[in-house]
């Protein structure tokens, strides 16, 4: 029972981590290696707004932090990525470098140790199906599911959302219909960064805000997206359930050291068997020789 409950929670956590990364890749065709850095930035900003010079109330601080992270994402595209779009090597190196600069800059700025924590929405715990679960994890599952639903509605019943999907499906045809490719890319990066921020606000209360978390989030996000098929949302959610349960099972039967190893091995095995991922059919031919 415990395995099922915590497996579901872990899976939702993983998909929250990966959602922003997948969104950016599916729309802008750009691997955002700065994802983990944006995640940590949000957490740090929220902590800063609440504790140091301003001491804002929790909701204001959180909204402000997510907003600023989204703006950072948009700025990264507007001033850096727009110049190197389409050059794969440069895209990878540039986003990776930006992410490293943010993370190591935060580490240098004093982001280490146990002092940085975010408060949970609701403290305390309850029991579900005979397993004790704290409220924060339930909130994560609730808001995670709400986010999936909101994203689905946004991309299917909203002008901007439909434009994003149009660009993702066929960039040239979408541009012929008057959809601005750069504008959608900016929106997608802002949205992706915002989702990374939302994930940070939800997940960081479970631990400390430390730089290493940023790297781990990047790895998990990549693992989930690669296994699900880069750019496929249904695949992302399915893959996060696969990895989520695999991790909980290894933790139950082996030790928690192996959590990361499971994710990494899953990537390598997936790439061996089906390089384009579970739901990435259309790219199979161009990515594999």
């Amino acid at each position: 029972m415990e395995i099922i409950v915590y497996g579901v929670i872990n899976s939702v956590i993983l998909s929250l981590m990966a959602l922003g990364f997948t969104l950016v890749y599916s729309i802008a065709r750009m691997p955002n290696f700065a994802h983990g850095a944006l995640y940590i930035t949000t957490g740090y900003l929220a902590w800063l707004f609440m504790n140091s010079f301003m001491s804002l109330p929790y909701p204001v601080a959180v909204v402000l932090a997510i907003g600023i992270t989204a703006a950072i994402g948009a700025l990264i595209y507007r001033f850096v990525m727009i110049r190197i779009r389409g050059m794969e090597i440069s895209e990878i190196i540039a986003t990776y470098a930006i992410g490293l600069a943010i993370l190591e800059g935060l580490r240098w700025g004093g982001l280490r140790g146990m002092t940085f924590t975010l408060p949970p929405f609701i403290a305390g715990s309850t029991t579900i199906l005979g397993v004790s679960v704290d409220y924060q994890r339930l909130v994560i599952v609730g808001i995670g599911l709400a986010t999936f639903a909101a994203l689905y509605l946004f991309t299917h019943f909203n002008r901007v959302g439909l434009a994003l999907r149009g660009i993702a499906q066929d960039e040239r045809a979408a541009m012929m219909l008057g959809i601005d490719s750069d504008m959608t890319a900016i929106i997608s990066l802002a949205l992706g960064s915002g989702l990374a921020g939302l994930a940070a606000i939800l997940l960081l209360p479970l631990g400390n805000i430390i730089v290493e978390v940023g790297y781990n989030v990047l790895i998990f996000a990549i693992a989930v997206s690669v296994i699900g098929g880069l750019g496929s949302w249904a695949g992302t959610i399915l893959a996060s359930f696969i990895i989520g349960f695999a991790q909980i099972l290894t933790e139950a039967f082996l030790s928690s050291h192996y959590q990361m190893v499971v994710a990494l091995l899953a990537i390598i095995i997936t790439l061996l068997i089906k390089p384009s991922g579970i739901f990435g059919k259309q790219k199979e031919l161009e990515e594999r020789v």
Partner: protein
Amino acid sequence: MMRKERIDRGVRVRTAGLYAIASWQEILYLVGPPLFLIVGAIILPILLEFAPYWKRVINIVCVYAIIALSFDFLANFVGLVCLGGAFFVGIGGYLSAIFNVYLHFPVYLSIPLATISGAVISTVLLMPALPLRGVYFAIVTLMYPLLATRVIEALNIMGGTNGIIGLDSLPNAYVEHYMVIIVMLIFLYGMRRFVNQDMGLVIRGVKDNDQAVRASGISVTKMKAFAVFVSSFMGCFAGAYIAHMYSWAGISLFALDFSIIPIASVVIGGGGTLLGAVLGSFILVPISELLRNFGTFRIVIYCVILTGFIVFKSEGIMVYAMRKYHQFERWVKV
């Protein structure tokens, strides 16, 4: 209206033909730059005799230059962007530690053995990733050093988090300097030759048009495997050398520095020139030593320089310098 025109210098045109050796000026034009690099690299340890700290930096510069060469070859000649150069370094370092500490091989055996066996092991381990291209390969190679670190930590093998200590250090300081300098020069000029040989041309074909290579009846995966072998050969040598230089092999051999600094060097120096990789590390690594007090802030500075170069000057210093050397610009009326 005026516009700028770029044309070859006279001496370039004169030396391009078969009868290059007509005057001292032309000979100097041809052999000057490589001679400057080779002689400069060889007398550098003697020049820095009075600055012992900076003498040690030479070794580190050359090690990074070798790793940068391996990245440049793989990224710009084969089209495989390897974000995990540290994986090769770690494999080489740990293998030389195993050969030296556990099996008691002397230094002059353990380094070459670690280089060759490390290259074989790295190639075999990277095999699954070889059919991949572009983003996928970059992602997977980014994972490899992390995976290695986690496995060593989780299984607590090979010294665990403490690493393997007590490797033999190299006999004396001059052997230490000249070994790495000479190997760097051999790798540099060897690779410059190799990429223009038949084999090198096929490998470059894999980057530009792998379907054409396949249509010619050549296995693309085999070619890529060979390229990874060459590249990891250089990386493993660097790792084995570092392990012996510090008399220690630990999980920090898989650290980010060995992945990111060479990439930055290649981008700054100019991708696809091989010389640029060396030049870039000769610029970046001393800067890094100057900034040693700033701790991790160094990486921030690297990344800012790296992003700046990618965005504003993606050709790199070497390509720019070569253009200035061979050509001049003038204003013409249109």
